């Protein structure tokens, strides 16, 4: 199971990178979203999977899954959300101002 998830994370990373290497802003942003999904899966896997019940204390349960990675992922999800939202608005504004959503046309001159 762990390795399956890690392979999935790898594929998410790969597709993310492939999208980030594109020209159109939307594709690039989608890439970053996939990137954070991949990262979160890696965090979760590093705490070993399914080794017990969900980490909510209950007297009848003796073992729980590792709670720390889950806490870290929660923090990370929120932060990623913040960045993604900012990036969306930013891209929208950048594309509007520069009249293009093609990163290749957003290179700029060497001496501005």
């Amino acid at each position, binding site marked *: 199971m*762990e390795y*399956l*998830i*890690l*392979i*999935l*994370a*790898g*594929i*998410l*990373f790969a*597709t993310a*990178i*492939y999208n*980030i*290497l*594109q020209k159109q802003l*939307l*594709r*690039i942003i*989608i*890439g970053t*979203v*996939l990137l954070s999904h991949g990262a979160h899966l890696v965090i*979760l896997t*590093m*705490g*070993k*999977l399914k080794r017990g019940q*969900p*980490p909510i*204390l209950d007297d009848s349960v003796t073992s*729980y*899954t590792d*709670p*720390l990675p*889950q*806490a870290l*992922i*929660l*923090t990370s*999800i*929120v*932060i990623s*959300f*913040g960045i*993604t*939202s*900012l990036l*969306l*608005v*930013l*891209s929208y*504004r950048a594309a*509007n101002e520069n009249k293009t*959503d093609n*990163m290749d046309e*957003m290179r*700029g001159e*060497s001496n501005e």
Partner: protein
Amino acid sequence: MIFAVLIPLVFALFIPFLSKLKDKVHTGIFVLFIPLGIFIYFIRFIGEGFSPLHHTYNWIPSLNINFSFYLDGLSLLFVLLISGIGTLVVFYSIYYLHKTEKLGHFYVYLLMFMSAMLGVVLSDNVFVLYGFWELTSISSFLLIGYWHHRERSRYGAQKSMLITIFGGLSMFGGLILLTVITGTTSIRSMIDQIDLIVSSGYLPLILVFILLGAFTKSAQFPFHIWLPDAMEAPTPVSAYLHSATMVKAGIYLVARFSAIFVVYEWFFIVVSLVGIITLVWASYMAVRQTDLKGILAFSTVSQLGMIMAMLGFGTEAAVFAAVFHILNHATFKGSLFMVAGIIDHETGTRDIRKLGGLLTFMPMSATLALFGTFSMAGVPFPFLNGFYSKELFFEATTNLNENSNAIASFLTEAIPYLAVFGSIFTFVYSMYFFFGVFTGPKKLELLPKKPHEAPIGMLISPIILVLGVILIGLFPNLVNGSLIQHAAEGIRNHAVAYTDIHFWHGFIPPFIMSLIVVGVGIILFLTRKYWTKIYEAIPGNLSFNKVYDKLVKNVDDFSAGITNSYMTGSLKLYMSLILGVIIAFSFAIMFTTGGFSNISFNDLEEISIVDIAIVLIMVLAAICTIFINNKLSLIIVTGIVGFGISILFVLLRAPDLALTQLVVETVSMALFLLAYYHLPELRKRNETTATSITNLFLALGIGTLITMVGIAAHSSDWFDTISDYFVETAYTLGGGTNIVNVILVDMRGLDTLFEITVLGIAALAIYSLIKVRKNKEAE
């Protein structure tokens, strides 16, 4: 001694106030007292019984960087030159620089230089020496650029700065190596540990480093090219820095460290060879110059080469002659520069082609020039000091140390001939200077001003210097035992036998060499019309200037070329480069350190059909994002991945995550749809196959890397996680049953606090982004 060194610098701070008075009192008059005072302070040390003095003042003791001043014969000679010529130059400048010039700047730079130069020759601490060394370069840069509205001044200033600071840094490298090897920052202690330095194996490198410093500063071939361009500085500066003192800092450095290097045969080879080439080349080049100061500049280079060569010889006689010539050169060259300045000042030009027959207009200057040039040429008259040192030089060339090294012994054979050859040209340009300016047809119509003799104030300084020429000429032993011998001892680091200097030696080789120089020199001077054509055949100095110009220009072009080739502003390129490096390095390290080994399949959970189904759907959706060309579909497919993650979180027993992910994903979807409502439709990915393959390679590289490192990390089972503690204490200490929540708000509360902060900043940033736009539209 620290006062002597720092007083000029401190006084420089007051110059801006004093220069406000310049309409009433020329700023130079205030300045004059500084070098004069220093000169008087130090002159009392001259004498047979002089013994070195040492004073230390702490500065950064924890780094062994202290003002450790050491006055031995060599330093004393230099200190007297710096302060003595300094006095004369300041006095001369009072008449040379008009009150309308920016006198404040001039004297600040000059005083800065004076401190720096005194510091160089008095510091025993290598890093203090280095500091002062760079300060001389900086003040020289500012003085050359004094008239910076002229293109040539800027060019000359930049050139001198680049070359001398290059040398300074190189010297710094050498000093660092010496310090690290010997564990001391004191030059004298270094000299005491020669064995350690030799056995370290770094001696050749240190030699190269230090010599680069010395050669650039003392304008040795092929670094001499900055000195002729430095002539753009006001003439007092040329006389002072670029002839008498600063350019001799390199000589001083070699002299100071020669006690370390003299054991090493390559010291002899390199220093003598460079010195003698400089002597020959520059004297040859001086003849072709048309600018008076140009002649003097090349002449200075050539004479510095001669002194350098003598230091390279390393014999007692050569060192003695070198020291003697340092003094003599300062006197006659200083006076000649001042005369050149006078001519420039009184006729409005320094172009020797426009000058001629000035003897009748400027008899005093002519007389001064006569003594100066004839002394420089080494004409055998008993009242010219130049002859004595030149003769000692010849003598030294014929008495070199025996050498086992083949190159060295060849050089030993060749040096006397080269010395004579170079001196012939020295003779020619000296005559050329004097006769070209003061005799021959008058060309008054070519002169911008009607020539007349300079005011007496301007003449006093060169007169004093010429008196020095004559005095040393008549009584060569006047300064011998009291100064020169001590200086030679300072270089040799042990007692030096007293050498009696006298005019007549008999018909020994040196005298014959002198006769050849004078004889051939006269012939060449008289016939120079016929042979100066060879300068066209041998391009000469211009070629090295061209190298420099090309280099400087190419540095700009080359760096622009390189930088613009990859700093294209293309995100894709930047990302590709970064990813490529990460992939290459990480895999390389992973395999060399055996990272991906001991992979275990023991500690794994079972996989259920549902798991596989979810994963497969997510993989498909993720891959689809690459191929979809419709923005709505793209957003939806991305949503599938996101919601897939939520389901996975449920399956993997992370309910909080699943909930959060669900909410975030939903809101994100809405945001995506909102923001991209106005944006253009997706275009097809029309990229070349090569690009696709590169992208694919990078994508798969990162994906594989993460998976492999993840598997390897998972397989290592050395440690337990700290999470057990959270499970144990979540309720007892944290007071909550949802462990994840307890961690978030309590154990790692700081994370959460700042996670919210991040969100807050993002919100504010988004708000201001949108608001700025609204404001714009409103305008």
